[in-house]
């Protein structure tokens, strides 16, 4: 598999254009990555809607949990997938089918999740697709917070950082 690369400017524009995220595979356990990614994104002003059939009807971090993307009764621009690469294909197809009804613009597959065939289908349907990345880590990287932990952001700039 070829390595994935995404331009900083592209990711920055994408993260700034999104307001609401449906998080598939959200967990209510506070030590699970999906839980603290959701909490982090909420702290940055995103609305995050948890999707998890096993927890449907309950609440995570103040938001009602839905069993599927189609059950969410309002629009959301991004689908963040915390499932394995195979399941990500099915979820991507569901998102493609719902893209006009729900206003979906972006499919985001989490770290280690990658489905190149689903990516092609989604891009052919006009969606932006990011794979094998975490929106929390990318937000932190692009807006300076990841660097606080000594992590290489790869960013060179003489401009003052504006969050």
């Amino acid at each position, binding site marked *: 598999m070829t390595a994935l*690369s*995404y*331009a*900083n*400017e*592209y990711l920055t524009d994408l993260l700034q254009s999104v307001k609401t995220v449906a998080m598939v595979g959200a967990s209510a356990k*506070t*030590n699970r*990555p999906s839980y*603290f990614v959701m*909490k*982090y994104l909420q*702290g940055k002003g995103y609305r995050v809607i948890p999707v998890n059939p096993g927890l449907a009807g309950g609440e995570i971090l103040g938001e009602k949990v839905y069993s599927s993307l189609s059950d969410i009764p309002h629009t959301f621009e991004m689908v963040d997938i915390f499932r394995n690469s195979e399941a990500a294909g099915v979820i991507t197809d569901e998102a493609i089918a719902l893209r006009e009804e729900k206003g979906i613009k972006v499919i985001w597959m989490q*770290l*280690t999740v990658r489905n190149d065939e689903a990516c092609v289908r989604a891009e052919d349907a006009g969606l*932006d697709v990011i794979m094998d990345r975490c929106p929390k880590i990318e937000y*932190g990287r692009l807006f*300076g*917070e*990841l*660097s*606080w*932990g*000594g*992590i*290489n*952001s*790869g*960013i*060179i*700039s*003489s*401009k*003052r*950082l*504006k*969050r």
Partner: protein
Amino acid sequence: MSKHTIKNYGIETRAIHAGSRPDSETGARNTPIYQTTSYVFDDADHAADLFNLQTFGFIYSRLTNPTVAVLEERIANLENGRAAVCCASGHSAQFLAFFSLMEPGDRFLASRNLYGGSITQFGTSFKRLGWHVDFVDATDLEAVKQAITPDHKAFFIEPLANPGGVVLDTQALADLAHENNMPLVVDNTLATPMLFQPFDHGADIITHSTTKFLAGHGTSMGGAIVEKGTFDWATAGKYPTLCEPDPAYHGMRFFETFGDFGFSMKTRCVGLRDFGPAMSPTNAFNTITGIETLHLRMERHVQNALKVANFLENHPKVSWVSYAGLPSSPYYELAQKYMPKGAGSVFTFGVKGGYEAGVKLVESVNLISHLANIGDTRSLIIHPASTTHRQLTEDQQIAAGAGPDVLRLSIGLETADDIIRDLDEALS
């Protein structure tokens, strides 16, 4: 700008800019020295998220500090790594790197051509923690094949070795490490990323004494651990500290949670937190400033070293010179392959007359400083057998390239002819 196009910058640009955008609040162009121990929390929930490693931010300067963080990112960037952790010294960097890999009773493999302090640290002090080292002649690939086993947790080498002028076949050694499911850990202190890029040749982790060429002016102690981010700790199946739930963090698994910087997070949030060898913000600032001229300094260090080595090779009172930049060196070809910009500026030579002649020389120089450091703007000399390597047996000294007649030079940035004249006068 297309979706997948990444802008690349040259290493000189990155030496000056990586990690140090202008301050977001004040616009300060240079990196401020954040001389503070601690940082206020927004509220109790924010504090909890920080302590649980669930958000980014500062708690206490033993763990992270904004000035030190700039240095960490700068070094990670220059090494083309994913992340770096800085600490108080090169020795603490090695300690922390191994603490993230080893359990009591574990073994690791190390080249026998290492800085003498590393040999003592590994062979004597680590042993008291139950971390056992097997030393091997890493210039001999057959010897490494015989010595390496899947039970080893790491293979540690110094590709441009201090003090012996030895250059190792890093890629071949990395292949042997990977065949045995362990990372290759490389001490890149003597070459610096300006002369040698270990991650391009199979290394997985790099350690530095930043005290040396990175800081570069003999002012500031420091160390760094850099992670490439591609080693699969889970598949290797022998790194429970990285892959199993950590009781100190509510059962968090570091590799699963942080992926390609999981090793660095473990090293910082457990090793650095619990043993405490933090780098001071002022030392980080001095080192950041040093790195901004690293490319220029290394170029001149190498030029001067080659001139001095050529002079010594033709001196009647010198029996041999071990500098991988000289065509006479058995390591010349490897140096040309792995570090074509130069084989550093630290090398050894032998004086006729053995131990006594060596002691007399270090006491006779006038410009060159007799002291136990390397990588300064000043030229430095030491007689390892009577100083840095004196804790070793004579056999160990010879194996490490630090026998009784050996002198080590770290050639600085003075006028090359002045360095040569000083040695010439001291030798006669």
